[in-house]
């Protein structure tokens, strides 16, 4: 018998023979069967990527909107045990010199109430026509530069820098836009419209404003907010120290918020307030939902993966069982079992790879752009499809790994049968 080959040389030969056999098998296989298997792999891939991508996308859409219409890329806010950002005007100077800055908005915030029909005499036990929420004092132009609030106006108009007598209110406070009926919810009566006079009270001080516009988004800070000019807020709330509550920062495209945050920290801003990227500033419940949906998506993907593995297993097993004689002949003429197994693994890998490639094209060329342009309309977010190249690559790798195992096991089972029995069909 000839000298035994080295491990790598033998593996190289087994791979070459496996590839030779797999290539011919695939070339001469029934085209419809191959198409069907590839289609199953495509659906599996879509199940892996799209289902979890949409689940995560529901929350991601909410986070994106929170960033777009509220927090900006980076937000500086008061410490949890402090009312305001200390030395706000110094902080503003640092922000203005921040590399990559596109725009910023300085905000004053406080709890307040807004009352309509406050001159009317209330009957006994009649509830006042008022709501209570967060009031923000803003520079409308600067705020628009960061959050583009004016684009969210659904009725009336956005604030102008000279609108000292106007207020813009979120849609949450209007029955027309908020159909919720949960106990304790207070909204304005139907008679409050654009042009209505409303009494705003902050820290016991009140002033009358005209309702200029109604904002509607899917961000609670906007929908539940009330917005007046910053100069008005300072006067009404007695904020003569000019210390702010929030500074929302928008960065130029391509600027990393983490680097911007580091630059702010390096400038000592963290002594005066909390610096957070939009990711860090997301409400805790959204963060928890994101984690839960991520887990749910992974669980659904895992089930899809098992189904795909079983499909491949069945396909390869049926193929190997029906070709038992073929395998027997190969072994009979001296083809190494490993080369035969490799040929089956390569066949199943190719099915999965074609499914994954077609699936990736579908996801990145069609589905993702489609969902970006036409988000799914959910009550709390505009759901998008979250699919990153790195995340998808990991899922492709998992799919291929599952395919290798699913191709190997049935081929191995059939290979282990007695060579002569396989040849003679016993």
């Amino acid at each position, binding site marked *: *018998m*000839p000298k*035994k*080959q080295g491990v790598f*040389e033998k593996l190289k*030969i087994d791979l*070459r*023979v496996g590839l*030779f*056999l797999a290539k*011919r*098998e695939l070339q*001469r*296989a029934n085209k419809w069967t191959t198409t069907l298997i590839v289609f199953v792999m495509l659906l599996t891939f879509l199940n892996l990527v799209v289902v979890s991508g949409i689940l995560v996308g529901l929350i991601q859409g909410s986070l994106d909107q929170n960033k777009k219409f509220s927090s900006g890329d980076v937000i500086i806010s008061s410490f949890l045990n402090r009312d305001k950002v200390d030395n706000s005007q110094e902080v503003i100077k640092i922000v203005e010199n921040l590399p990559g800055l596109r725009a910023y908005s300085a905000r004053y915030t406080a709890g307040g109430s807004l009352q309509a029909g406050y001159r009317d005499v209330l009957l006994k036990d009649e509830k006042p026509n008022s709501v209570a929420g967060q009031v923000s004092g803003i520079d409308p132009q600067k705020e628009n530069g960061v959050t583009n609030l004016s684009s969210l106006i659904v009725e009336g108009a956005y604030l102008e820098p000279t609108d000292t007598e106007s207020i813009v209110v979120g849609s949450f406070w209007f029955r027309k836009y908020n159909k919720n009926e949960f106990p304790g919810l207070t909204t304005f009566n139907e008679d409050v419209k654009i042009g209505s006079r409303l009494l705003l009270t902050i820290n016991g001080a009140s002033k009358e404003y005209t309702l200029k516009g109604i904002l509607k988004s899917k961000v609670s800070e906007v929908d539940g907010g009330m917005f007046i000019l910053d100069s008005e807020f300072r006067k009404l709330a007695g904020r003569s120290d000019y210390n702010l509550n929030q500074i929302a920062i928008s960065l130029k495209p391509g600027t990393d918020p983490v680097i911007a945050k580091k630059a702010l920290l390096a400038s000592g801003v963290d002594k005066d307030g909390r610096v957070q990227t939009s990711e860090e500033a997301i409400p805790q419940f959204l963060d928890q939902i994101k984690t839960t949906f991520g887990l749910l998506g992974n669980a659904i993907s895992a089930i899809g993966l098992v189904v795909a593995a079983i499909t491949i297993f069945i396909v390869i097993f049926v193929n190997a069982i029906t070709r038992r*004689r*073929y395998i027997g*002949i*190969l*072994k*009979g*003429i*001296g*083809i*190494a*079992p490993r*080369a035969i197994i490799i040929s089956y693994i390569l066949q199943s890998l190719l099915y999965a790879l074609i499914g994954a490639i077609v699936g990736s094209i579908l996801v990145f060329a069609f589905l993702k752009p489609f969902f970006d342009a036409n988000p799914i309309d959910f009550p709390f977010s505009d759901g998008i499809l979250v699919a990153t190249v790195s995340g998808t690559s990991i899922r492709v790798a998992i799919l291929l790994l599952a395919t290798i195992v699913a191709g190997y096991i049935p081929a191995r089972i059939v290979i282990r049968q*007695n*060579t*002569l029995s396989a*040849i003679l069909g016993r």
Partner: protein
Amino acid sequence: MIKINNLSKIFQSGDAEIRAVDNVSFSIPEGQFVAITGRSGSGKSTLLYQLGLLDRPTAGEIFLDNLNATELSDNDQTRMRLHSLGYIFQDYAILPSLTALENVMVPLLMQGLEEKEAKEKSIKALSRVGLSDRMHNLPSQLSGGQQQRVSIARAIGHEPKIIFADEPTANLDSETSKNVLDAFLELNKEGQTIVMVTHEPEYSALAHRIIELRDGKIVSDEMNK
């Protein structure tokens, strides 16, 4: 070249024991053309499967070039089949999804030859059996005789030390059978050792030596006059 000592193959059928090959011993020197004959059920094919290392005997030893093949692992037996043995089956046993050329190429690739070299050798082997014009045909596009010639080309392509042929003409007409046997004689003339199972006296008469089996035992072992 081949030495067999006390070889037995026993099958169990319920409580009954069937001795398909019963304590057989003989040896075959290099270059000999041996015909194993006998009636149906005499154990000649079973003996050939043991000699060709396609099955393991119940007892006894098979020495191929002084190497005790019965002691080899399954993988080593597969390697021995690849490098030293060629097998021709009664029903050709060629791979249906491979062309004639590819059928012959597979063992050569497994031996480690590059594709180009394997192809050249395969074309030579197919030409020797007169199939150079059908080498790109699939088995389904070939007649029985042509398929058997592919099987012969595959058996000789990797230049084995011994060729085992199990009733190679059983499914062929007399004209095609003659062509196949002519090919064997030509190979043998070049020094190829051949062990052929046949129940046709006319064909066994072409061999140097005829071993006749009955009930798994050798009843005669004679050189052909």
